[in-house]
């Protein structure tokens, strides 16, 4: 069992609150990802769990033991740093065995454990090399190896892939996921990359300005974002946001803006009722916009817009659209007839998957 619990944790640097009343609970064997843009407090939170920063207030528990006052060495954690932090004067074997040597394990035990970790990570032939003789990806593996030889309660990863090139990042992503399943370890992983968060996490914790915005499984935070920040942060390209107002007509509610008027799905209507006449923000993901030639579709979900930029990615295209004063991005499969810049397009929106946010509070209405 290795559960990590943070209760009302605050970290203040001078007058700046880096982490503001953070309460999270990470279950045994869970792969938890803290994600947010730089400066959101995610790394500070991780460093407090590691014991490298002290919490200004609040409690941190590892396995029901309050660890606030324990030094890092007594917390039974391992951490992989963004810059790997391998010891330059030691070879890979010594780097990986360093923690075990401090635990005063016997030489044969250390060798066996280092060997086991090297086998898992496929770095056997690197064991006698110095860190400067390794490539970025190899250093990354050694850093992970140094963490797993110790068999700690909790693994902490601080943006471990951000120094790697894009291709290697994809490969390492899969490898860390595999490792998680193999070790059955509790992992807390910090990243600014929402793709990493979506692909690896059991549960995502999204932070902004030191405050936890939402947590949940990748699909939950993708499909049901708690507020506009989460909606815009998760997903690539980002969700489109358009300012709008809500109007009731007959028994329907319409989302109207500059150059469009959309009929809210029936399921949305109870929630929208309270916000009639108020300014809102309408949000729709690029993948929920489709080209529509079908004139018979319910006109309540149709938008006409001009194609401003067309980006072809091979398997799909991104179209930057101008609709009134607003701009939107649509993500479409490559159409049979190429889309010309300047062309006026008729677009069908999957409104059942769209969102409406309160403009003032940014919270999700529906």
């Amino acid at each position: 069992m290795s559960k990590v619990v943070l209760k009302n944790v605050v970290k203040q640097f001078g007058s700046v609150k880096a982490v503001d009343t953070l309460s999270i609970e990470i279950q045994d064997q869970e792969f938890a990802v803290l994600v947010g843009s730089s400066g959101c407090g995610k790394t500070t939170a991780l460093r407090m769990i590691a014991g490298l920063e002290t919490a200004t207030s609040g409690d941190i528990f590892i396995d029901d033991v309050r660890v606030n006052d324990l030094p890092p060495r007594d917390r039974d954690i391992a951490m992989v740093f963004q810059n790997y932090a391998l010891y330059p004067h030691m070879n890979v074997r010594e780097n990986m065995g360093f923690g075990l040597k401090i635990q005063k394990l016997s030489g044969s035990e250390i060798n066996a454990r280092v060997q086991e970790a090297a086998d898992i990570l496929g770095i056997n032939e690197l064991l006698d090399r110095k860190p400067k003789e390794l490539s970025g990806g190899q250093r990354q593996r050694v850093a992970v190896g140094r963490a797993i030889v110790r068999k700690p309660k909790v693994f902490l990863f601080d943006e471990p892939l951000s120094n790697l090139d894009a291709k290697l990042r994809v490969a390492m992503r899969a490898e860390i996921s595999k490792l998680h399943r193999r070790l059955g370890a509790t992992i807390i992983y910090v990243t600014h990359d929402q793709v990493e968060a979506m692909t690896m996490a059991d549960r995502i914790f999204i932070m902004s300005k030191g405050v936890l915005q939402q947590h949940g499984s990748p699909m939950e935070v993708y499909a049901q974002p708690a507020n506009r920040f989460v909606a815009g942060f998760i997903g690539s390209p980002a969700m489109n946001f358009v300012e709008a107002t809500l109007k009731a007509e007959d028994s329907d509610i319409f989302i109207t803006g500059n150059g469009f008027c959309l009929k809210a799905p029936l399921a949305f209507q109870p929630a929208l009722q309270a916000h009639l006449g108020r300014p809102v923000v309408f949000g729709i993901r690029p993948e929920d916009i489709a080209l529509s030639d079908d004139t018979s579709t319910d006109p309540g979900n149709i938008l006409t817009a001009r194609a401003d930029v067309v980006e072809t990615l091979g398997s799909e295209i991104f179209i930057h659209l101008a609709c009134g004063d607003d701009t939107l991005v649509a993500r479409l499969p490559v159409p049979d007839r190429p889309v010309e810049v300047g062309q006026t397009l008729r677009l069908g929106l999957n409104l059942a998957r769209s969102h409406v946010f309160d403009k003032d509070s940014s919270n999700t209405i529906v």
Partner: protein
Amino acid sequence: MKNKLVSNALFYLLVLVIALMVLFPFLWMLSSSFKTQVDIIAWPPRLFFEPTLQNYIKVFEEQDFLKYFVNSTIVGGLAVGFSLLLGLPAAYTISRYTQKRLAVFILLARLMPGISFLMPWYIIFSRLGLMDSYTALVLSHMLIALPIVVWIMASYFNGIPTEMEESAMVDGATRQYAFLKIILPLSGPGIITATTLSFIFSWNNFMFSQVLSMEKTRTLPIAVYNFVSYAEVDWGGVMAAAVAIMTPAIIITMIFQKYVVKGLTMGAVKG
């Protein structure tokens, strides 16, 4: 092409002029050490003369040069050793806990003219019966060596990413253990720089030894002074002694200069 030639020529001319200005006193000293007293004070100065080793014989035979040499080595070695012992942890603390005020305070001690310390020291050491003792000399020379160690090493430690010891601490090390096993082994060039510079400063120090040492602990620079008497200044002896004193310092600098340059610029560019 022609322009380049001219600018090259000007460049080397300038280098030559500066080198001459810097080296002239040294060359003057070197040549005088091989001259007789008559040749030294001759006017116009004699560029060509019959060299003599008489001055060096005087330095090594009439003076107890070996004793002074041993004294200088003991005093320099102990002062630098203790300064490293105190200064390395201090520099680490200044670097990692950003103790800027403390650092400035140490620099202040270095900036104050050494002579202002001498009077109180003289009184304190004589009352403690420590005049002419290695203790007094080593302590006084640490005033020079300690700030050098602290300042060079603090900026050197700034260049070592904090993740190094953080990683070791997560791995189970105490901060002290991480400092000893991770940070110090990475600090070789910095330590060599600090050691070389502070040893040379101690080696060359005249004033503290002149006041605080007597027959037993007299250091090398005082040996030069022995050639100055009421009646006359034995310039040949002074110059030969000076050459003999400078030689070890020059050799040390030449051996370690590449580390010194590396060590001094280390903190400047984040590695």
